[in-house]
């Protein structure tokens, strides 16, 4: 009898711990979302890397289209479009299409990733904007 009630207590404790775990995870997410969407400002350039190597850097302030060619004989593509200060992938030859489904990016640090092609598109802020003004 005593053993049984102890087990029930234990079970309640464990479920309470489960709820606690979920609460902590959601809190972490909330902090992450706050950091990602509220405290970050718009970036200036888009940097494209393929398998970790730099492919190109483009300004976010001018409308622009680039077909990012990757793979053997450049047979794969991700069509990157920069429009109204936002960058997005309009179409791509990758199987999952996650990059195409991604919303346009414009905040510093935001990125679109195409895992099958190893393509990473990331927004950066011009550093010299924040460099100390040594002339004045």
């Amino acid at each position: 009898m005593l053993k049984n009630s102890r087990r029930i207590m234990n079970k309640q404790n464990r479920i309470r711990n489960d709820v606690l775990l979920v609460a902590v995870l959601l809190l972490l997410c909330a902090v992450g979302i706050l950091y990602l969407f509220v405290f970050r400002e718009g970036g200036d350039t888009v940097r494209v890397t393929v398998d970790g190597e730099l492919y190109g850097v483009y300004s976010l302030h001018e409308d622009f289209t680039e077909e990012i060619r990757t793979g053997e004989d450049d047979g794969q593509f991700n069509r990157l479009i920069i429009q109204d200060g936002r960058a997005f992938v309009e179409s791509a030859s990758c199987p999952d299409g996650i990059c195409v489904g991604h919303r346009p990016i414009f905040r510093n640090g935001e990125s679109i990733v195409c895992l099958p092609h190893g393509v990473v598109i990331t927004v950066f802020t011009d550093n010299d904007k924040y460099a100390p003004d040594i002339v004045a």
Partner: protein
Amino acid sequence: MREKSKNVAFLGVCTALALILAYVEILIQPLIPSIPGIKMGLPNVIIVFLLYRRSAASAIGVSFLRILLVSLLFGNMMALAYSLAGAALSLLFMIVLRRLNLLSPVGVSIAGGVMHNVGQIMMAVLLLKTVELSYYLVVLTVTGTIAGILVGLCGSLLVRKIPEKLF
């Protein structure tokens, strides 16, 4: 000896079941509205079941076998690397949390689901050398939690309903 062969047969059936669940998941993917690239991880129902009914070792064995087989059948070597990293981290956390006995099977499964994503992102950061990828964790933690709850509920249902004597 008899116990041993029984065990081998049982784990073989579990591996086959996990494989079929992985296939079912691929089949039903278009039916349920979800974000592309995010899976529920149905085969992990078997892993949770094994973790609670058998041993950590059997869970590890079945998990890695099924990843290897699924990658050979439906995926590619890139997918294998991501899956292995996710499964290794997820199993590690699930085994430790199971031992600590602080959480219910559902809680253990939630931790497993979230850590699977963490492992995959870590692998992606390593392979693509892009730390910015970790921003995806914000979304993946929420989906991992939901997946973990569903898998955990199914798993603990199996643990409760399947009689001990059956095997």
